[in-house]
């Protein structure tokens, strides 16, 4: 279907399986929202299940989505700022791929979080590139041919340029959206609003689908308007084990268990067998984690942060 038609649809709901199989294709470039939290985890498992290949990942600091899809061999190239699991640890599959070429070598183009953010901003604005004070004079510039340093035409010093990022597909995970695709982050949006616009096709996954009337009660919260969205999928606990602001706390103990699990290539395979292929969908994943545990994470969060929405 033409982009025009899906972006103008009045009901963009579908299942996660449908959305991923419709828009994520072999050889495509793909980007995800999230930053040190709010990670797009459930769609990552679904992409592992479906097995799309030769992907180019464009991201600032992707966690599961970077490490897993490198580990499964689905990624061919990354354009990123950072790949690890923050407090939980480093990225074992990324290390194996770069250091040992396992399961195969990947191309790497490195930026910083801000300049990946600027690349998505340029893409979102329909501009060819963006200027930045970062990068110039450092090894990032030296080892990455996508970064250009020019003399400021307005007579200033050297400035670096980064090209627009325009992924084929973006998947962003937000607190809520309506069936038209109007998407709201109640907490921070990281680069979500720009990643959504930079992509040709945009899948919004959200904790909760709400009515358009609910959206209209807080219109300043709408980071992504409907005209930038192709699909809307309700995926509660879609960021687990990560936190989701105003929804549930970080499941750090689960994350540590996962880190121990994926430490070796064999362990990683077992983890995927159990948590990706062993669950037919995200609902089964949640059941396996345990609804009581997930509910506890939501409960404890309400103690700290209560949203009026």
């Amino acid at each position, binding site marked *: 279907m033409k982009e025009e038609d899906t972006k103008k649809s009045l009901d963009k709901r579908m299942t996660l399986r449908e959305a991923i199989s419709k828009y994520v294709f072999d050889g495509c470039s793909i980007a995800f929202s999230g930053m040190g939290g709010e990670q797009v985890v459930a769609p990552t498992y679904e992409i592992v299940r479906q097995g799309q290949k030769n992907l180019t990942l464009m991201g600032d600091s992707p966690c599961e989505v970077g490490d897993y899809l490198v580990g499964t061999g689905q990624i061919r190239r990354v354009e990123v*700022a950072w*790949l690890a699991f923050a407090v*939980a640890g480093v990225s074992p599959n990324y290390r194996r791929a770069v250091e040992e070429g396992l399961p195969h070598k990947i191309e790497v183009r490195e930026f910083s979080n801000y300049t990946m953010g600027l690349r998505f901003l340029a893409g979102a604005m329909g501009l060819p590139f963006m200027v930045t004070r970062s990068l110039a004079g450092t090894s990032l510039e030296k080892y990455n041919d996508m970064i250009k340093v020019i003399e400021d035409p307005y007579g200033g010093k050297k400035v670096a340029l980064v090209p627009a990022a325009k992924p084929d597909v973006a998947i962003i995970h937000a607190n809520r959206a309506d069936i038209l695709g109007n998407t709201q982050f109640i907490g921070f949006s990281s680069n979500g609003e720009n990643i959504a616009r930079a992509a040709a096709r945009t899948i919004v996954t959200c904790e909760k689908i709400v009515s358009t009337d609910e959206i209209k009660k807080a219109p300043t919260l709408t980071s992504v308007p409907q005209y930038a969205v192709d699909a809307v999928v309700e995926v509660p606990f879609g960021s687990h084990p990560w936190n989701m602001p105003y929804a549930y706390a970080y499941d750090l103990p689960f994350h540590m268990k996962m880190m121990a699990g994926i430490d070796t290539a064999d362990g990683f395979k077992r983890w995927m067998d159990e948590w990706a292929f062993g669950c037919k969908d995200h609902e089964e994943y949640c059941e396996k984690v345990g609804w009581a545990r997930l509910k506890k994470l939501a409960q404890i969060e309400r103690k*700290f942060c209560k949203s009026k929405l």
Partner: protein
Amino acid sequence: MSTTEKKYAEDYTLQELLVAAAAREIKDREVVFVGVGIPCLGALVAKLTHAPDVILAVESGCIGPSPYRLMLGIGDNACVENAICITSLWRAFSDQQRGYFDIGMLGGAQVDKYGNLNSTVIFGGGSYEKPKTRLPGSGGANDIAISAKRTLIMMNQQKRRFLEKVDYITSPGYLDGPGCREKYGYPGGGPAVIISNMAIFRFDEKTKEAYLDSVHPGVTAEAVRKEVSWDLQVSPDLKTTPPPTNEEANIIRTLDSQKVYTGGGLKNLTFENYIKMLNSSHEKIKVMFE
């Protein structure tokens, strides 16, 4: 002096001393761009002690939170808690580039005498494309190093980490020395301090080289020099790093009761203990903010 000394905790750990040392680098009312771990905990301790009007900022886009718990990441929910402004990553970094952020916090696997940091690759005989050790990469570090008014660096003190020259400059300090930052029009001033597990280093205004300014209790200048690859200068006024106060130690132990940042607690963290930590932190820290 004796009254002041009395405030110091007696049973402190090295990790707690590092948190306190980081906290003391922060002045009240400053805007602090915080990361994960020890320095982040330091920023929270500063806010709860001598710098109540400090503004924390994180990369995910949260400005000015006052969380009742440890921040477990730069996009943890603690970052939205009681925040004065919640926005986007690109805006937070743009505000830093504009010059609004006083201090940024950095770490790495290698640092050199000009404060350049490497958190990308250890060549180890290999190359950028095929290194011995692949590290996570810049994240926001390159941007913080370039644009924060000053930076605080946290490092493990080892000769192979304190180098004449790093393999890869992820986060520029003074590059090749005086005048280099100006050449590229970097908005920020560069590194102000390195805090290691042995000592505190500062940078000579003229040469831009790191020198030894303070040793932690029980550490000698000679021991530090052994763990540095360049000819380390020592301040004529060499100090001893003060330990955490009772108040600081108390806050650290409340926020991080499971020793996620300040001990080996992370690996064996049970769900039960984790929820317990959050609950007790909520109760106790709430009182401190009010």
